[in-house]
């Protein structure tokens, strides 16, 4: 990967990786750190990483760093203390989007990750498996169960409304 290609990946994918991490951990500073860490790792391996696989490399690196961070913070009991921050402009959300954002919090970490990779980034099951280290069938099961949870949340909200 050339310097030019690296800089292009920064322009193209930094927002995506940041959004993916931010929606998972809901901590802007930590999300920035993870994104920077992912790009630093890619810069150090520009000789090995091909430009076509840069996006997958970034997501994989960022995802694994995030999982490590979550595990470490959980061990230290910090995770529950992390306050949700306002990291997006809610006025741009539709009602459904807001409800879905709430519904995402009902998912497990892995369910949330695979659904976001699927819907936001458009990865197929194989690619999600490469990023998360899951098998194809595991990815499918996590996504199907996540959809069921999201659907039940939407039904319950509609029932309340």
């Amino acid at each position, binding site marked *: 990967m050339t*310097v*030019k290609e*690296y*800089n292009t990946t*920064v*322009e193209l994918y*930094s*927002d995506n*990786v*940041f*959004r993916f991490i*931010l*929606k998972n951990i809901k901590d802007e500073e930590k999300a*920035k750190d993870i*994104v*920077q860490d992912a*790009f630093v790792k890619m*810069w150090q391996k520009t000789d090995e990483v091909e430009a076509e696989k840069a996006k997958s490399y970034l997501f994989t690196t960022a995802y694994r760093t995030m999982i490590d961070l979550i595990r470490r913070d959980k061990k230290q009991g910090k995770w529950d203390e992390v306050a949700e921050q306002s*990291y*997006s*402009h809610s006025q*741009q*959300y539709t009602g*459904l*989007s807001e409800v*879905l954002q709430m*519904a*995402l919090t009902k998912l497990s970490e892995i369910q949330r990750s695979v*659904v*976001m990779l*699927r*819907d*936001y980034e458009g990865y197929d099951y194989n690619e999600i498996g490469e990023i998360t280290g899951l098998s194809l*069938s595991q990815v*499918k*099961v996590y*996504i*199907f*169960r996540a*959809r*069921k949870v*999201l*659907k039940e949340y*939407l*039904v319950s909200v*509609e029932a309340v409304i």
Partner: protein
Amino acid sequence: MIEKINLENYEAYFLDYAEGNLTESQLLELDSFLEKQPSLKVELENFESIVLEEEPAIDISNLQSELKREEATGLLLADYLMISEVEGTISVEEKAQLASLIRQSPEKIEELAIYHKTRLTQDEVVVFTEKSALLQKEKKGVVWWPYVSSVAAAALVIFLFNFSFVSEKYSPRGFAWQKAPINYEESIQYRFIAQEKEVSIPIKKEKISSTKILDRTFANKVEPETKPFSEENIDKEENPILPLVEDNEMAQIETISTPEKELASDNSSIPEEVILASNNISNPAEEKFIPIHEFAKSKIKDDVLKGKTFSETILDEIAEASKEKITFKRKKDRSGTTQNFALNIGKFSISRNK
């Protein structure tokens, strides 16, 4: 074995009769029983009218896959099919199955619509604001031409300084033509000889560059002219023929006053360190095209009058051509032989130690 027919067990006989499972002796028993109990004949006809439909064969493979699906996903068939539809992974058979389910239960359409709503939409307002910190500066490509030109210039200088005819021992005080005959038919060659006499020669002020020299031929054949010279100042071995100037110009140069750089004619001088430096870079706008012999004439004249040695003149020309600062240092021994030297042309440097 069925007991003898009676009011307690006649239903079993009737069922076996309807299914055709009674033997002849049992049929005879049934007839004699109905003669005694004629009211049960109607009941027997009712048994005969019941025809059981054949049960459909159970597809075990489908059952197994459904069990697997439920075990794996925890989803009922309807949910599984609807999520497959949302995910875009539904097969043709599954699509038909889903359509069948919706026909049986139309409320499933609403359920399917809710599943479609579970797809997350892009949220473009989340932007990573520190992209600039991630961007890397592109490395500049190596520009080779200055190095190539420097190497070429260095090679030229080394050639000139290692070639016997270039010597710093000549005294650039004047020029004269050697008496020795020269074959001008083959090539025009001139001798560069130190003179004791002094003459004043007008110095050309015009700046001339060797980079624009086009004509490398000596068009004019020139007859040598004998000029007086001092024999003791001429070292024929160390001041060989130099193709520098034409005789008509040299005729005017009886002697040239050079206040500095008197070269020792004997070998007793102490080792000296000669330091030459040149940063003589001309303005291209002032350059003009001249034949090489014209250039050589004027250049040598000018430079010698300025007190420059032949080496300095050459370095000036290389500096002009390469646009680089040139520094040359060398050290001689008592015999005047160069012991070591160091040449810097721009970023390029070369040195030699004997």
